[in-house]
């Protein structure tokens, strides 16, 4: 028996210029915040941007964007919701307020189903917010999505960088393109991350401050985009993508 979904995925993404997986391996480093804010920043620069929340068991982007009821439409496929100028899909539209316990094989299946049925259309950027761990979702985007790029998020902590380093080595070995590494939630001067990133042969993209205002702006994108965090991320984004 053959699963027909795999063969359509790259056609579905055929008109997407850049696919960026925001990843880390480590949890709680700000992947979702970086992914969501980056998507908003690029959309504000008049790019056509999609945001896909691929963290099915602990999704966050809907809270960051303040989205209620962003259900995709059904029309010869799954048509992303329009949210703050983004094409947006999160599984929360389907699982709602319920826990969604998924084993890895289920994560893999759900990911394939959505990649096979979502009609993203023409996009300059598709930002994929990845779950933590070096597991099914990561292996599947590498396996299934041709031309995917990784943007890696770490914190200053060696606890985060331990996993990030392993992930970077894995991506290098597999020749998966890595845009670079951002250091998020920086609270004090330290050269530990930039140094180690460069030593590992990757581009250090810059640091994003730990910014208490971020917490207060969750759910309000206008406020979020005015935080120091977002302003710094915008600078980095423009350096990378322009």
């Amino acid at each position: 028996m053959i699963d027909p979904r795999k063969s359509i995925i790259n056609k579905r993404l055929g008109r997407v210029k850049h696919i960026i997986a925001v990843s880390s391996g480590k949890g709680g480093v700000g992947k979702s915040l970086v992914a969501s804010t980056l998507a908003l920043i690029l959309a504000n620069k008049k790019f056509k941007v999609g945001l896909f929340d691929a963290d099915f068991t602990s999704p966050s982007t809907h809270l960051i964007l303040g989205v209620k009821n962003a259900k995709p439409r059904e029309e010869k496929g799954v048509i992303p919701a329009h949210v703050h100028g983004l094409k947006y899909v999160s599984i929360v539209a389907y699982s709602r307020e319920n826990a969604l316990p998924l084993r890895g094989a289920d994560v893999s299946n759900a990911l394939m189903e959505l990649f096979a049925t979502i009609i993203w259309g023409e996009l300059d950027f598709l930002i994929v917010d990845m779950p933590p761990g070096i597991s099914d979702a990561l292996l599947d985007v590498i396996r299934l999505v041709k031309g995917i790029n990784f943007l890696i998020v770490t914190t200053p902590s060696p606890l985060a960088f331990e996993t990030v380093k392993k992930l970077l080595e894995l991506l290098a070995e597999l020749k998966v393109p890595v845009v670079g590494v951002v250091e998020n939630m920086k609270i004090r001067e330290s050269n530990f991350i930039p140094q180690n990133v460069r030593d590992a042969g990757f581009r250090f993209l810059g640091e994003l401050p730990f910014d208490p205002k971020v917490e207060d702006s969750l759910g309000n994108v206008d406020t979020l985009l005015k935080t120091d965090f977002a302003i710094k991320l915008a600078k980095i984004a423009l350096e990378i993508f322009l």
Partner: protein
Amino acid sequence: MHEWALAEAIISSVSQIAEKEGLKEVREVKIKVGELQQVEVEILEFALSELKMDKLKNAKFFIEAVRAELKCRVCEHKWSFSRNRLDKESAEAIHFVPETVHAYIKCPRCGSPDFEILQGRGVWLESVKGVK
């Protein structure tokens, strides 16, 4: 009607297989559709008939429904999925992403959401026949 997207996947996959196996023309395609996903078979058939071209122009599509069988990983109980027990919104969620079944269905014996979908999940190609 995202059945259309599933039909496109089938057409694309069949074309790939035809290519790989050097078929000049595809005559018969057998498809299995799991009941968990509640695919509307008429729409799927219509979409397939609209989308088929080139080597698939004369292909006949046979669609077979497969009961959805679930098996609890905790107590090993087996049961069949029945959409009747679900409200409209939950059934629709499962239609789009069958894995969301784990948000809405529990093992009827022990209450666990930790069950396996033994069969009847989504859309599968069973066989592709044609002439070389």
